[in-house]
């Protein structure tokens, strides 16, 4: 999606930097004057950072702030947290069982996602979900190390990607 204008990605980076600044600086009960000063400095820093870095993020765009995409992102975050807890319980069972029930292998799956950042998020999610770890991404193919491989390799893609791909498609389409 390189059809973005520079202004759009500049605005995106500036807003994200500013939100991060406020989140790191804000503490409940701080005085109003101190808060105003922090907001002022935060604005300066966010605008400077955005000016220095926007050209390295050509896919960033203000369109990601639309309520529909943010809704998809929220659902994705909750799905991700749930999957992560499941992954850890699963790993705890494998690690503590006396006969390590391992059946590892590297499988190759395809993804429909086009955006690079979407692929990064998909790879990250796969790494933190039950028994799977992304080893390499090239174009639309992900290579995944799996601790306990399933019987039918054709279903591997659906099992590994789970619900993530659907929600990420909503965010990045």
């Amino acid at each position, binding site marked *: 999606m390189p059809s973005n204008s520079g202004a759009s990605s500049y605005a995106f980076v500036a807003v994200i930097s500013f939100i*991060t600044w406020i*989140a*790191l600086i*804000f*503490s*409940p*009960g701080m005085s109003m004057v101190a808060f105003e000063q922090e907001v002022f400095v935060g604005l300066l820093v966010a605008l400077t950072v955005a000016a220095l870095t926007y050209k390295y993020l050509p896919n960033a765009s203000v369109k990601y702030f639309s309520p529909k995409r943010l809704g998809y992102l929220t659902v994705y975050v909750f799905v*991700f947290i749930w999957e*992560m*807890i499941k*992954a*850890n319980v699963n*790993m*705890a069972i*494998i*690690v*503590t069982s006396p006969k*390590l029930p*391992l*059946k*590892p*292998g*590297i*499988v*190759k799956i395809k993804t429909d996602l086009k955006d690079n950042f979407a692929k*990064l998020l998909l*790879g*990250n999610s796969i*790494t*933190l979900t039950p*028994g*799977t*770890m*992304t*080893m*390499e991404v*090239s174009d639309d*193919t992900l*290579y995944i*190390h799996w*601790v306990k*491989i399933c019987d039918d*390799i054709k279903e591997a893609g659906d099992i590994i990607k789970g619900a993530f791909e659907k929600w990420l498609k909503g965010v990045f389409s």
Partner: protein
Amino acid sequence: MIALILYYIGVALCFIGAIFFILGGIGLIRMPDVYNRMQASTKTTTMGLMSIILGVGLMEPYWIIKAIVIIIFIALTAPVGASAMARAAYKSGIPLWEGTVLNECDAPSCKKEGDKQ
């Protein structure tokens, strides 16, 4: 009263995080090869770290927003490090465990160093 309840929830989260760290350590010792060890250690330590940081955030409500920002940074960066290490291990020719069932890795970019010619 609410502060006290939050405090105890925070303590519980720190305890859960510590348990996950222990499990990660056990996994690191028991797993047979680099890739499986990487799986055991990254998942459990990421979860344990998030749990502990959230617990600290709940124990000291002044820090909760900062704690959440740190958790987001960890969630974005820890898996990238794990993938990079696994890929580096594969490229430098560290063998898979003999019980490995399947290896479909044929991307040009994950060829081993020795296979080039």
